[in-house]
């Protein structure tokens, strides 16, 4: 096959057959906190089982609500240096990381024109309360680009009242496209590696196409990177419902 300008032809992925299984799709809507799913590796599952037991113990005593990246949370922590021993911070969750007991989430807010981020450990005994103030998912799972966005997108009122939750079924997705500060940014968010859908790129077409040079379209077809968590998730869901139902 001879291409027009002597360069190798652009990689055209084969069309993937889309299988829609209507039976199992309904059951997948239940929420499982991402830190319960063990990472892919060769560690003994006993280690994760023991850790899960400790996590369940903590959850029995303290209610950790269901939340995703993009929710606005208010966290009250115990702090010996405050006057009334506890400290409240309101912010948008920009990242959820870590597995097991070391699971963390980062809250971001802009106070008095100063951007502040705090990384909290979900299972830390210092946390006294977590309230969800606004329930909405965003287009991406990692909102680190808010650091390079205009500060209005990260400001949240500290005395915000919790919005009433209508449905117990679906969490609305906010399709907000955020406007950025002028470049340079902390990371090159226009590159396909980050796959960000929530930014309104006002860069010239030339720059957007130049960023596509770093795309790796074969990555989604790499079978060695596949990690099917459906069976593991089912097991963990059963465990959780048994233990927490008691």
């Amino acid at each position: 096959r001879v291409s027009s300008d002597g360069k190798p032809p652009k990689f055209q992925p084969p069309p993937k057959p889309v299988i829609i299984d209507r039976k199992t799709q309904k059951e997948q809507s239940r929420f499982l906190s991402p830190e319960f799913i063990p990472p892919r590796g060769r560690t003994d599952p006993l280690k994760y089982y023991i850790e899960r037991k400790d996590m369940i113990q903590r959850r029995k005593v303290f209610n950790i609500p269901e939340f995703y990246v993009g929710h606005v949370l208010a966290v009250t922590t115990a702090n010996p240096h405050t006057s009334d021993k506890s400290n409240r911070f309101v912010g948008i969750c920009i990242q959820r990381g870590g597995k097991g007991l070391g699971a963390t989430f980062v809250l971001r807010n802009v106070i008095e024109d100063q951007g502040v981020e705090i990384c909290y450990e979900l299972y830390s005994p210092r946390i006294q309360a977590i309230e969800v103030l606004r329930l909405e998912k965003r287009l991406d799972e990692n909102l680190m680009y808010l650091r390079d966005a205009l500060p209005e997108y990260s400001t949240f009122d500290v005395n915000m009242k919790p919005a009433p939750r209508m449905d117990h079924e679906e969490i609305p997705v906010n399709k907000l496209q955020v406007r950025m500060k002028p470049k340079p940014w902390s990371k090159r968010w226009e590159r396909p590696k980050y796959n960000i859908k929530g930014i309104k790129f006002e860069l010239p077409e030339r720059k957007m196409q130049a960023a596509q040079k770093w795309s790796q379209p074969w990555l989604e077809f790499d079978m060695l990177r596949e990690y099917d968590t459906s069976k593991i998730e089912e097991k963990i869901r059963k465990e959780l419902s048994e233990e927490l139902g008691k």
Partner: protein
Amino acid sequence: MARFCAGFAFALQGLLRRSVSHSLLSFGSITGACGAIQKLTRVRVVDNSALGNTSYHRPPKCIHVYNKTGVGKVGDKILLAIKGEKKKALIVGHKMPGPTMTPRFDSNNVVLIEDNGNPIGTRIKTPIPYTLRRREGEFSKVLAIARNFV
């Protein structure tokens, strides 16, 4: 050749000012965070002292960190070069992530201080981390003028 280009680019940056500057730092170009505060880091003075708030053609830079390691974290004293003079300052927040549950700020914040520890300004509007309260004895006067805590 590379040095000539860098000089030319730096001169251009003065002309091609970004039309919208949302941060309070009005420097030419800003490199990424290189860790906490060390020698030659540009810092942001957050109190309302005259020295910290008058504009100058060079940003305030750290020239020495009073620490065994040369890296300053929250609560360390540093020597600052502002407006052609040397002044001591206290670090109240940096861009580098610290231990969990401690706040990470979007700019390296600093409060101007005398040799005996008295702050020069009279008010600090930006939030200060609670961890400074642990050393209440040394920083009592700085904590007294702070308004918001995080």
